[in-house]
């Protein structure tokens, strides 16, 4: 499906700021996806949330699923995401998005349900919900933004903050001898039988953004096809709380984040030749008689 061409209508204040460059009524390419509302986001300059929000919206448009999609917004910088997307949205408590998504998906199995979560939300306060939704093989899609810091609360140490990274609550740098090591979610979840697909991507370049979109789209397609739980981890920036310019933040991401959080596909049951997560799980447990029992129901 081609990118829609549309007439852009800018809010008044935005016209004042950039009106000289884009005239109202001017026909431009690459317009706002339908699934994205015309509400101006609250993201900082250089933050990759905006890019990923848009990628999610583009995927929803391209898959034609806006009318049956229910999104779960997290607590964190993307807390207002329910205002940015045109599909039905639920605002969850901090960390609970996978549980809320489970509730929705169980009621309406034909809906496409996704959770969008940051690192504090998904990998700290919501670790139990994350791991168990994954191991249950909930047929949901999770977009995980890993920027190694708590953004909204002002730059505290995250479960994914790097060793020796300075944050508000690790002012002398993350001391792994005292507070331990970062959680590598893609690696961790790829060991679970309920998981169909895990990929780690980033948004620091056009090529990487294209790859990120491919991954997100696949994570949605997997759900539509009933293949199983899919998660895309996006290694992201937080220039504001890292105390850097956007350009320097991207460089820091390349220099420090990507070596610790290597990009790539961590699990893909379809690429491994299975129809879905259940089939792959059966094969992995091929020597366990009880796991091989056929069910009557």
């Amino acid at each position: 499906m081609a990118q829609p061409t549309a007439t852009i209508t800018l809010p008044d204040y935005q016209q004042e700021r950039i009106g000289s460059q884009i005239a109202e009524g001017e026909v431009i390419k690459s317009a706002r996806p339908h699934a994205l509302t015309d509400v101006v986001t609250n993201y900082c300059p250089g933050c990759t949330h905006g890019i990923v929000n848009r990628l999610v919206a583009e995927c929803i448009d391209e898959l034609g699923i806006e009318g049956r999609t229910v999104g779960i917004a997290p607590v964190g910088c993307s807390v207002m995401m329910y205002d940015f997307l045109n599909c039905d949205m639920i605002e969850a408590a901090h960390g609970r998005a996978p549980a809320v998504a489970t509730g929705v998906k169980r009621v309406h199995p034909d809906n496409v349900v996704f959770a969008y979560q940051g690192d504090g939300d998904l990998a700290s306060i919501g670790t139990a919900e994350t791991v168990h939704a994954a191991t249950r093989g909930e047929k949901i899609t999770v977009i995980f933004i890993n920027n190694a810091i708590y953004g909204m609360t002002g730059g505290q140490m995250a479960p994914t903050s790097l060793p020796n990274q300075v944050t508000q609550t690790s002012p002398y740098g993350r001391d792994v001898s005292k507070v331990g090591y970062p959680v590598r979610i893609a690696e961790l979840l790829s060991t679970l039988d309920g998981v169909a697909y895990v990929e780690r991507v980033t948004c620091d370049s056009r090529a990487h953004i294209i790859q990120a979109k491919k991954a997100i789209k696949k994570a949605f397609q997997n759900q539509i096809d009933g293949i199983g739980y899919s998660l895309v981890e996006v290694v992201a920036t937080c220039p504001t709380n890292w105390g850097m310019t956007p350009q320097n933040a991207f460089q820091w991401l390349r220099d420090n984040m990507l070596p610790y959080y290597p990009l790539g596909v961590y699990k893909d049951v379809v690429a491994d030749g299975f129809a879905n997560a259940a089939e792959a799980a059966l094969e992995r447990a091929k020597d366990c008689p009880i796991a091989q029992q056929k069910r009557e129901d």
Partner: protein
Amino acid sequence: MADNTQAAEERVLMKGNEVLAEAAMRAGCRFFFGYPITPQTELAAYMAKRLPKIGGTFLQAESEVAAINMVYGAGAAGARVMTSSSSPGVSLKSEGASYMAGADVPGVIVNVERGGPGLGGIQPSQSDYFQATRALGHGDYFMPVLAPSTVQEMADLIYLAFDLADEYRTPAMILADGMIGQMMEPVTLPPARDPKTLAAKPWATTGHKGERKHNVVNSLYLSPEKLEDTNRERFERYEQIKAKHQRQELMDCDDAEIVVVAFGAASRIARTAVRDARAKGIKCGLLRPITLWPYPTDAIDQVIANGATKFLSVELNMGQMVEDVRLAVNGRASVDFYGRTGGVLPTPEEVLDQIERLAAGQPVARSAGAKDVGSVLPQPIDRKSSYERGE
């Protein structure tokens, strides 16, 4: 043995916990999310067995925290949904309950109470009265709290709880206890309702199908004025609930001078004691709140109008509901308390003893079996002002 395939009108002998489950399904509930804990186990077990057979979903969550958030999600998606737990587990549900209240998402929470605080015990208790009636979780909200005292009421009240939750878009709670949950009594089950026949929920997040604006289920309002407006609108609904849904049972209250106030398991014991007191010629009655929120203040007014001068709140705790009795009585009569805690049940004889003391104008003991409990608890307040006392 409980047989759940009988016609609706037939009387059957079932455990309270199982009746909660069966009646919930008959009310149109098809989704249950929970985590194991004593003494509500039979409820979840019954759901696990039956729900899949009627096209429903039973899911044992990784925690009570997850379970209530699954309830939040399923409720937001428009389903009749419930969770059940016992006291320590209900504490964990407080977060989700607050979000449900804040986002106006209906759902039913069952608390088959046990003794506390902390891990406490597993015997019947009413130690969670404050938690249930003052808002289960942070924020400015209430929820309907229904307190069954018989197995029949387990059926009737959970049916009502689902209706109230949907009508007023609020979580609702069944506050039961280990006694009513574990005991078997005859019950006539309510008729089964097809969930498809229930009123539509146009606000639910079901996917807009291109037919309407997108729905948002949310409790976040960064503008204080907007949040205030939202809360005020919710409290208008609370006023409607208070006006329409106070429920109580009055026994022997027409000419009662002494009114024993007790709910749930404590009311069973109080009922026996009040009967025995009547047999001894004491003008004594029982006021049994069925709704703990809204509290049946109209009934308190009524028994005072009938001539009640002394109230005795009997509870399975160290004195919680007595505060609501005092608020409702508002100085028009004396209010005393008698309770046992930790899962110890008072005997009817203990309660009768207190009624007799009240009748004789003697102070009540507050909690038998405890050392010097009377001296550490506040004494009945002398409601006269210093001016009235001539000081």
